[in-house]
């Protein structure tokens, strides 16, 4: 390379550096303003996902459902062979099929679904049976203080206090927006804890265990709050969901 002053490499404005620094500043601003940005985008794609048979709206960053699993993959249990056990310290263990659940008193509930990482799907219509009803049926032993939820993914667990588990907005659901819950959303049957962050709503539910003490779930062990009320936990200020 020549070194005289006409050499374009040595003259001109340092635009490259400005561009790189500008993008870094934009990135830092994005991290700082993340909750705001993702709420805005989430509102858009959440609303779009309601009227989007293609599912393409889920590709918009920040909003709509996002698929997540903590495992390396696991066999799906189709509705035909699916079983839900209610066990632990109870007088009457239950083993329920999907039609057993369909045959019990049903509850419908519409609530926003809020993930602790920021995305929110507004107005999700859930349908299933109240967890309180199943617990009554199984008759917990006296002095039982908590309920543990086990996923058939082989790894995930969650838990609620007995008082939380008996709330009317805590359901065992098999229907989402009028359709059977598919694999991606934790089907055929999952837990829904409407007033709490999404990680409480254990997907691919296989067992409900009544326990005499609270057993922290998968994310609680990693530092997330046990009482995961939307807007009042995990250092977040989201609007309540249920």
């Amino acid at each position, binding site marked *: *390379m*020549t070194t005289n002053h006409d050499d*374009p*490499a*040595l*003259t*001109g*404005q*340092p*635009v*490259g*550096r400005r*561009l*790189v*620094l*500008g*993008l*870094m500043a*934009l*990135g830092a601003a*994005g*991290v*700082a*303003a*993340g*909750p705001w*940005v*993702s709420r805005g*985008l989430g509102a858009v794609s959440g609303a779009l996902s309601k009227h989007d048979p293609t*599912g393409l709206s*889920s*590709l918009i*960053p*920040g909003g709509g*459902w*996002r*698929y997540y*699993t*903590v*495992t*390396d*993959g696991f066999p799906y249990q189709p509705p035909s062979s699916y079983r839900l056990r209610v066990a632990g310290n109870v007088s009457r263990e239950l083993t329920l099929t999907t039609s057993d659940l369909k045959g019990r008193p049903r509850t419908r509930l519409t609530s926003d679904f809020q993930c*602790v*990482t*920021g995305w929110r799907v507004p107005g999700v219509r859930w349908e299933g049976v109240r967890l309180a009803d199943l617990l009554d049926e199984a008759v917990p032993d006296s002095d039982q203080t908590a309920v543990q939820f086990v996923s058939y993914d082989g790894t995930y667990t969650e838990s609620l206090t007995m008082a939380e588990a008996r709330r009317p907005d805590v359901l065992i659901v098999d229907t989402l927006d009028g359709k059977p819950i598919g*694999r*991606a959303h934790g089907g055929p049957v999952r837990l829904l804890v409407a007033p709490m962050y999404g990680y409480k709503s254990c997907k691919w539910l296989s067992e409900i265990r009544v326990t005499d003490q609270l057993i922290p779930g998968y994310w609680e062990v*990693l*530092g997330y709050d046990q009482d995961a009320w939307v807007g009042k936990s*995990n*250092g*977040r200020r989201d609007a309540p969901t249920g």
Partner: protein
Amino acid sequence: MRRPAEALPRFTRIETWVHRSTAAIVAVLFATGAILYVEQLSLLVGRRLLVEGTHIVAGLLLPLPALLGLWRSRELRADVHALGRMTPVDWEWLRRRDRRDAGLAVGKFNGGQKLASATVVGAGIVLFGTGLLLLAPARINLAVSVREGATITHDLFTFGLLFLLAGHIWIALRHPEARRALRTGVVDPAYAAREHAAWAAEQ
């Protein structure tokens, strides 16, 4: 060096190696990232931990070829310097519709290449940084809002970079001679005289 009839040396072996290894890493990042991001692909592929691990390792390796190249190659350092500076000719090249026929004294890189390369570097740094933030929460107590911000920024910059790289590949497909230059390190003098007149005249 004056060899008008022969191919002009344009890139060194180290430079072509840096380009190729970075491209391979970026391809792995986009493939694994798409599997993690798109629900249907996630379900199709399974093996989430493997895909996640591959994405993380590839991400951590991303700056390595460029850093090694900068360390070992004076030519790459000179090219980076040239790419970082916009001359009046570069702005004119960007403005004019007849840029390729206007006989502009374009240097080794044109204005589009300069702006695009700086954008890719900036986006790469942001993706690397936000990726590191997303790795952190399991080990350090990072505020959830920071995690949320890193997630959305990582996603948005990925989409931006996706469009930029699609354009990059589209233009490369239309310029076989430029592809050959990056593959073999040498360029046809006629092509160089047409696209990079000032640079070709110096050789």
